[in-house]
């Protein structure tokens, strides 16, 4: 007997989702779409160029199990979505396999409270300005994230202002003599004083300023007695005189100058937020994104000294905010910068910065890979996207019709490539492909193919995926720099995509890592590991990463590990096909090596005074198996030029926000974008923005997670 079947009982086949690019955004999208709560509605396949996941966050284990990163990755204490993702991932991994010794989340990240900026004094001396950020309650990713609105930030800012100044109040002011009251000056006397000050001008000096001060105090004590215009003139005159003296005083007292600069910046920010009506503007901070942040602060009263301060330089450095990688062109959209800064300073939990206790690949992408594998996600490594084919222009609904890939290598087994290696029991990504798993592995290794670049088109197969057959939905989560070469038909048809590529810029970065046989104390760098920014070109940011040495696999462990990074001046136009070639990459790598050697020879002494020897840097301090001497010894260290399209950092330049396309954009009925270059609300180049974008991409396809559950999406 055949029973009648209720159509409602039919089990819908899962929707096939192709996630192209396994960086933070793509992996987040895959993670969200395969959460158990969705009941297997989506069958996800991740297509990844080369041999490892991670995108700009990819790392690899090299010689001695060394962690080799794209750059310096510190997670900020406000990365609520990113930490939530990782905490869920670690919990699930532990739950799936409780007997396996796995790194727990608590072991994966450590707070980094001690930070600073390099401050250039008037005499040309670089001075480290070190700050212990207080530990805040909770952990990032906990339930009930901090309140995120502009008035709350402004109240925090005002409190910080008071705290800064209270910090300085250790001096007993009981002995301070009050200003002697004297007869109230008449309007005529005031006018005469102003005339005299004006005549004396800059030569008035301290005596005149002191005299004017006494008068000013009397006037301020009886404001209603005088016409406002007269008071204003007096204030201006005194201010001008006082500024001269103030400059002299602050030149001699660095702490005072720094605090005054920050006080100025806070005041300018508060005033600007009110003046620009940001509290009530439905665009939130986006309303001022056409301004550069420094320009906007100046508009609201910050002095040039404050704008050029170490604090501001450090913020620009951390955001790689130099157009074209040129240190003379600092630029970041004011709204995005303020949003990031407010969140960073006033909504962090636990610590301001968090360090990973292994490579970013090991801490982030290996656990994600393992958990997603357990959920049934397929990974197609060595698949390089070459073209996104659209439906015909006349189609009822615009959509992606096909996806073309170069298959860079096949596995010997015919099954999936198994990408992880083990270093001291920890699943890690190797720095090079595991050639032994590949067909013709030895030959491929000998050929020296760069599997992570767009321009090398050597492939063993061209693969075409068709909509409805191989995929239903596509998450395009490749780097911004890659879009131009794979989205020809979209760019041809869609002006918004063209505008996005024209206005939302990326920049190459450079980084190096040093393993040293001398510890921080021996190098004269103090006794506490620190993260510093705001230093000189070509490397303005560094972090002490010595805590990673035990996670590496050294027979004779080095004593100190330090990471350096910065933007790299752009020498190529992304529209020019010559960039990303083997020759170009070799040239850029050589250029970065020279930067490293120059930096160590010239600039390392300000960080590590004892590293200076006659003739420059003490190259013998570098840990090396090879018997190399002098600058040649640097070859034993690690450096990278992140110039490939997928490696370039996504910037937030003034005037660019409006050109970002949201993952929620509905122009194509089966496509969503994901990446930190999209309009994800945070709109900065960072892990949190990429994770938010990935969550939005998942929401665009499935309605999950709810937008309200993406922390900060509705942030002003």
């Amino acid at each position, binding site marked *: 007997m055949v029973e009648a079947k209720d159509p409602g009982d039919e089990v819908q086949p899962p*929707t096939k989702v192709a996630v192209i690019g396994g960086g933070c955004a793509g992996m987040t999208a895959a993670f969200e779409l395969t959460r158990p709560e969705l009941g297997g509605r989506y069958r996800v396949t991740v297509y990844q160029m080369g041999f490892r996941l991670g995108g700009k966050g990819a790392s690899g284990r090299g010689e001695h199990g060394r962690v080799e990163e794209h750059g310096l990755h510190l997670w900020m204490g406000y990365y609520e979505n990113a930490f939530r993702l990782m905490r869920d991932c670690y919990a699930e991994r532990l739950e799936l396999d409780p007997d396996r010794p796995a790194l727990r989340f608590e072991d994966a990240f450590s707070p980094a409270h001690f930070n600073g900026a390099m401050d250039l004094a008037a005499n040309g001396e670089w001075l480290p300005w070190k700050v212990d950020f207080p530990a805040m309650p909770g952990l990032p990713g906990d339930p009930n994230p901090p309140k995120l609105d502009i*008035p709350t930030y402004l*109240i925090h800012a005002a409190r910080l202002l*008071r705290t800064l100044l209270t910090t300085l109040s250790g001096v007993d002011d009981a002995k301070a003599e009050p200003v002697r009251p004297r007869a109230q000056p008449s309007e005529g006397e005031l006018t005469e004083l102003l005339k005299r000050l004006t005549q004396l001008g800059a030569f008035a000096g301290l005596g005149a*300023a002191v005299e004017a001060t006494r008068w000013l105090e009397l006037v301020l004590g009886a404001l209603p007695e005088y016409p406002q215009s007269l008071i204003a003139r007096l204030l201006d005159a005194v201010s001008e005189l006082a500024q001269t003296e103030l400059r002299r005083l602050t030149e001699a007292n660095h702490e005072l100058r720094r605090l005054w600069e920050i006080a100025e910046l806070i005041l300018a920010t508060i005033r600007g937020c009110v003046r620009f009506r940001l509290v009530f503007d439905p665009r939130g901070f986006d309303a001022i994104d056409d301004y550069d942040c420094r320009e906007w602060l100046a508009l609201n009263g910050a002095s040039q000294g404050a704008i050029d301060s170490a604090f501001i330089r450090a913020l620009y450095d951390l955001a790689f905010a130099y157009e074209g990688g040129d240190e003379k062109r600092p630029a970041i959209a004011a709204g995005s910068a303020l949003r990031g800064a407010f969140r960073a300073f006033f909504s962090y939990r636990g610590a301001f910065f968090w360090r990973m206790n292994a490579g970013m690949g090991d801490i982030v992408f290996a656990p994600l890979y393992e958990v997603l594998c357990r959920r049934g996600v397929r990974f197609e490594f060595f698949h390089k996207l070459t073209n996104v084919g659209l439906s015909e222009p006349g189609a009822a609904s615009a959509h992606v019709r096909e996806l073309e890939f170069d298959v860079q290598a096949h596995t010997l087994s015919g099954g999936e490539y198994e990408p992880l290696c083990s270093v001291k029991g920890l699943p890690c990504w190797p720095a090079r492909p595991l050639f032994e798993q590949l067909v013709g592995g030895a030959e491929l290794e000998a050929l020296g193919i760069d599997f992570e670049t767009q321009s090398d088109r050597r492939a063993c197969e061209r693969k075409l995926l068709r909509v409805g057959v191989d995929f239903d939905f596509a998450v395009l989560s490749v780097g911004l720099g890659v879009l131009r070469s794979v989205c020809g038909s979209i760019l041809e048809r869609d002006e918004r995509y063209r505008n996005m590529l024209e206005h939302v810029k990326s920049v190459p970065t450079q980084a190096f890592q040093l393993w040293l046989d001398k510890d921080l104390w021996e190098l004269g760098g103090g006794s506490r590991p620190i993260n510093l920014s705001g230093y000189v070109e070509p490397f303005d940011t560094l972090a002490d990463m010595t805590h990673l040495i035990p996670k590496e696999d050294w027979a004779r462990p080095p004593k100190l590990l330090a990471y350096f990074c910065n933007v790299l001046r752009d020498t190529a136009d992304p529209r020019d096909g010559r960039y990303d070639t083997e020759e170009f990459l070799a040239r850029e790598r050589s250029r970065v090596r020279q930067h490293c050697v120059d930096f160590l020879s010239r600039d390392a002494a300000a960080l590590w005074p004892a590293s200076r020897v006659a003739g420059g840097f003490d190259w013998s301090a570098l840990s090396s198996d090879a018997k190399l001497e002098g600058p040649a010894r640097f070859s034993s260290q690690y450096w990278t030029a992140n110039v490939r399209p997928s490696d370039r950092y996504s910037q937030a330049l003034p005037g660019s926000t409006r050109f970002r396309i949201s993952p*929620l954009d509905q122009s194509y009925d089966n496509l969503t974008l994901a990446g930190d270059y999209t309009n994800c609300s945070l709109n900065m180049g960072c892990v949190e923005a990429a994770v938010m974008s990935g969550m939005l991409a998942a929401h665009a396809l499935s309605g999950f997670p709810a937008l309200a559950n993406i922390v900060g999406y509705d942030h002003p």
Partner: protein
Amino acid sequence: MDDSNRPKRPKMERTEPDRSWMNGSFGPGASAAGSDPRAAGYQAINNAYRLIDEYVRQGQRMAENLWLPLDGSAGRAASAFNAPERLMRAMGDMTMAWLEVMEQFTKNAQAKPSPVPAGSAGPFASSRVEPPPAATEAPSPSAPAKAQPLKLSLDARGRVEVSFQLADAASLAELAVTELRSFGSDAEPIRGVELSGAPDEPVLRVRVPEGQPAGTYNGLFLERGSQRPCGTISLVVH
């Protein structure tokens, strides 16, 4: 494959962040300033801004000035931090008081704000004339959160609106109130402002002289001893 059967992305309820901080701002019940809640909101904020800005500017000038060693002696130079520290702390307190006013004002609001026209959030937009608020009765002042209730005694011939805000910790017995000034205008200050009454039943008395020019007048509640600002008072004469 038949295109009609192809899975398609669900329609989005929205594709943009909802950045409106309050999700409902100035309802008619939240502000007695007029029928256009946004206009009233902006006006209140602008007034508050002008007040704080004036004090901040004066404070900055004064702080810069007092940083100088006044009599040139080494002892004074050593204590150079303290005067500006006190002043800046006062400015910080003032700013917080003002922000709390703003927060309180907007917290109580109900209706959603209408969109701001493109480009109106620039620095030059403040010169745009906001529509005047419609005439309504003077609102009852909101009570301080923790302190004893403050009664208002208002003596005015024309229509006026009074609002004030006090820091939570402020003790009314310790307070003084400044006269109310209209910044950027030549109008005479309103001097008939005082705190009186029994310590457990303080009264804020405001007398608006006949013929007082229309405008917004602002003042401060000050702590008697330290002269630290701990609240604001705003009065609109129609």
